[in-house]
């Protein structure tokens, strides 16, 4: 069964099918949120919230629409709501100073790859939208067409924004490298 068929079943009241969608997407959504929040525990909670919203707002799913685009949109909303609620998201930037406490399991300070750490710090200087664009296109290898659907814009616009984000990331990265 396709994702869309499963989601239609959920929409029609067969909520158990949501467990299959969870199996297929929980890792993707968890990583998306973990990259953006730089907090595994938070990403865990937020991922569950995403799937609960899929169930509770199932009637708002438009039949025929790509499920992947829809669930990423929900994920972005869940993240935005979290930041809104917690008021802990200062401006558009991640708390770089405390990042080492919240990085993934395999990012223990002693073993952490220096370049990856540098990349994280440079990413933190980008806007929320730029981080989402880079996570989707470069970390998760989503196509521009898919990202355009998630972001509700055109492919050309996405491409311009992604290239601009990479250009700014390059500047931050090599500026930080010199410090």
């Amino acid at each position, binding site marked *: 069964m396709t994702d869309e068929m499963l989601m239609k079943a959920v929409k029609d009241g067969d909520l158990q099918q949501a467990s299959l969608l969870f199996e297929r997407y929980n890792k993707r959504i968890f990583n998306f949120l*973990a990259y953006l929040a730089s907090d595994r525990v938070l990403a865990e909670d937020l*991922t569950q919230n995403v*799937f609960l919203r899929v169930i509770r707002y199932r009637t708002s799913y438009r039949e025929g629409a790509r499920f992947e685009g829809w669930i990423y949109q929900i994920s972005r909303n869940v993240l935005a709501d979290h930041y809104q609620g917690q008021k802990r998201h200062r401006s558009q930037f991640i708390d770089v100073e405390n990042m080492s406490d919240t990085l993934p399991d395999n990012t223990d300070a002693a073993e952490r790859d220096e370049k*990856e750490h540098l*990349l994280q710090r440079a990413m933190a200087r980008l806007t929320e939208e730029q981080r989402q664009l880079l996570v989707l296109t470069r970390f998760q290898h989503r196509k521009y067409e898919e990202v355009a659907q998630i972001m509700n814009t055109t492919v050309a616009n996405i491409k311009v924004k992604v290239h601009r984000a990479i250009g700014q990331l390059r500047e931050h990265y090599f500026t930080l490298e010199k410090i």
Partner: protein
Amino acid sequence: METNDWDSLLIDYIDQNLSAADRGKVEQALRSDNAVRMQYEQLREILQAMEQVGEQEPPARMTTSFNARLQEEIRAAKQPRTISLTPTVYRVAAAIALLVLGGGAGYWISRHQQQQAELEAMQREMKATQEMLMAMLDNDLSASQRLQGATVALRMDRADNDLITVLARTLTDAPTTNVRLAALDALGKFSHERPVRQALIKALSTQNDPLVQIALIRMLVDMKEKTILKELHRISTDEQLLNEVKDEAHAGILRLS
């Protein structure tokens, strides 16, 4: 070319998304322009670093926890849906109900008051008309006024006891035949009302105008008022009355018998 433009071109070059012509242009610049070559090296390092960021495995407890919450959702979905009336909902509902009821009550009161005012105005107007009418009927000095009053009474839809009394007195006491006949016509219009009927029967015994007597006998006979038979016998044998009156009484006896 600006740095940003080179960024975009170099990213597409690294991603192998350029046409042959653009690819040639970039390779030419990489060979001849140190700044472009450095920019290219930096972008390649950045893109490579992003490429190497591995995916993380979510903790197993996340799946367990989600499945538990899914079962709760399924149970909740199976239960009959109930509307949760929070205090806010109550307040909003109460406000709407008050608005609707208030509006309805206000509208009803307004309509009622308007109708009441209209009714009172009509009653005042009728009373004034009736007083004027009775004054006209009671005007002993003006036959034309009494005739006019009787004519007005004829156009009225209903009559109260006061008007009937005045009309009956006019029928008996008016100095002219025309006024008495006008009063008789007015009373005849309300002949279905018991007080009028009784007033007409009483008038038959007291009427002394021959023309009015004949008209009165015809009216009561038309009304099939059999209680007047005795009076008709008296009239038909009364030597002091005109023969025309006695003949009308006799004809009435025949019709009612």
